[in-house]
């Protein structure tokens, strides 16, 4: 899939995210839009064995640790036909499978129920250990937010995954630099991020999380390391923009957890459709 195709695909998914949030009248646009490029490349180009009518036992697994970014994942699941596109309208509605944060019981294609931050990396690690015990070649991916790494449990998992030599685990850190109360650098600084993860024993790949070429190369590097018998888990440190693709949302903390109203959603869709032409 060339980058022009990826670009139209992510445009379409961004529009679905806006549609979903507008309909739900709540949700998190900022962190969904910062993650969608990373997730699109992951689900459409990297992960193996995860097609709707052919779900393999040794498929790759994905854990969304930053659960509030789930509209991005629902958009991908709809595009991959795991859920009907129509169902996206049910986000956050009473009785819906599409809960405000991921629920693996209601929607079993989701590997983990998350939403209380800091837990997904531990769960992903457990899945990676379990699959290795079963001698499966599956890999496990886990997307975290940068603010999320303020949670202590993340660092417990950061310490243990290298101990268990989980080269089948690839964590992705969506560094969009914003969280509810302000910039990550002010709320509780996490830099130097790369140095921290390296010191804990991870192989760190630092990229622009909106550059398709860099994203693809990073996933490929992680895969190659494992294939060549590497023993380190991989952290893809993705520098992203909160609200990416909708100029009036970009870098704006105010758009962390507020849904666009009808007029705002309409402008947002126009920006996404015309963005590439400008």
């Amino acid at each position: 899939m060339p980058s022009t195709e990826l670009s139209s695909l992510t445009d379409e998914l961004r529009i679905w995210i806006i549609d979903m949030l507008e309909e739900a009248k709540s949700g998190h646009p900022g962190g969904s839009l910062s993650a969608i490029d990373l997730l699109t490349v992951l689900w459409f180009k990297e992960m193996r064995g995860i097609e709707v009518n052919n779900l393999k036992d040794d498929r790759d697994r994905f854990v969304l640790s930053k659960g509030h970014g789930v509209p991005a994942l629902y958009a991908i699941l709809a595009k991959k036909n795991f859920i009907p596109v129509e169902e996206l309208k049910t986000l956050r509605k009473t009785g819906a499978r599409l809960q405000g944060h991921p629920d693996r019981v209601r929607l079993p294609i989701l590997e983990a129920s998350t939403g209380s931050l800091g837990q997904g990396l531990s769960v992903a690690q457990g899945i990676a250990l379990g699959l290795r015990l079963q001698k499966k070649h599956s890999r496990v991916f886990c997307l975290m937010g940068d603010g999320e790494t303020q949670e202590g449990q993340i660092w417990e998992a950061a310490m243990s995954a290298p101990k268990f030599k989980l080269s089948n685990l690839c964590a992705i850190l969506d560094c969009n630099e914003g969280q509810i109360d302000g910039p990550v650098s002010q709320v509780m600084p996490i830099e130097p991020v790369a140095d921290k993860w390296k010191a804990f024993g991870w192989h760190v790949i630092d990229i622009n999380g909106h550059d398709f070429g860099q994203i693809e190369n990073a996933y490929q590097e992680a895969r190659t390391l494992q294939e060549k018998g590497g023993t380190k888990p991989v952290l893809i440190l993705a520098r992203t923009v909160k609200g990416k693709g909708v100029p009036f949302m970009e870098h704006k903390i105010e758009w962390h957890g507020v849904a666009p109203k009808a007029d705002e959603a309409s402008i947002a869709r126009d920006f996404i459709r015309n963005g590439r032409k400008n």
Partner: protein
Amino acid sequence: MAKATRQAFGEALAKLGETHPEIVVLDADLAKSTKSEIFGKKFPDRFFEMGIAEANMIGTAAGLAFTGKIPFACSFGCFLTGRYDTIRLSVAYSQARVRLVGTHAGVGIGDDGHSQMGLEDISLMRSLPTMGVFQPMDARDTELIVEYLVKEWKGPAYLRLTRQNVPDLFPSGAKFNPLKLMEIKKASPGILCVATGAAVTEAVQAAEKLTAQGISISVWNASCLKPFDNETLVSIAKGAKLVITVEDHSVIGGLGTCVAEALAQAGSSISLVKLGIQDTFGESGEGFELYEKFGLSALAITKAVIQRVR
């Protein structure tokens, strides 16, 4: 023969490991104390030492469960349940078939004091939807419950175990039903005593003293705190003059609360005395002295009953 229920657990799990390859065990630097090391030494590939990081251990156990394993995640009860948010979301809400094993239940652990004592763990675990909560009274009871947790129980579960030895109480030839109350000392209708864990031993000894004084008292063991056997409780409480509960745990949210809820919902007007930790903290001391001080010893139970009856 007296044995700590943690010891019985460790031995039972190691034995079950032979026939159940899906069992995996995790510990947070307390494997020698929780006795999970017995399994760890026998099956090193299925044992994960997670270090002093209980939240990560619990989350990892959930992930292992999602791949079809039956993980036993072990630590002291207070340290496990202290990571409540991880248990609430990654285990309970996620319907992860994790068995949380909390040892060092209650003031019975003695010297180490409050910070090491599981005193609110039953209450916390009972609050979580679908979480099974089990506390065996002796070694045999422990073996049977561990087996049940491996072979039968589908949801998440919490298993509470003692540090100290407890004598064998399981009636020979008795039929085991993990979800039902079990009669340990029979008596004609009079006083009904329901106890759990190490407190069952004290209750049985108290009942012997009371019987010798002409007071009729039966003792029932509650190994399963959730789902609680309301049906049996209500049926055996009929005709009793007094119901007394005994537990080495806070009386808020533990066995006493289970019994109170069951009786009240059945419209019973029977008097209830809840012996246990009365909304206070634990402390250091010899376990038997603390049982005296907190009103859980056979003598303290005897006195409490006599006070009510006379």
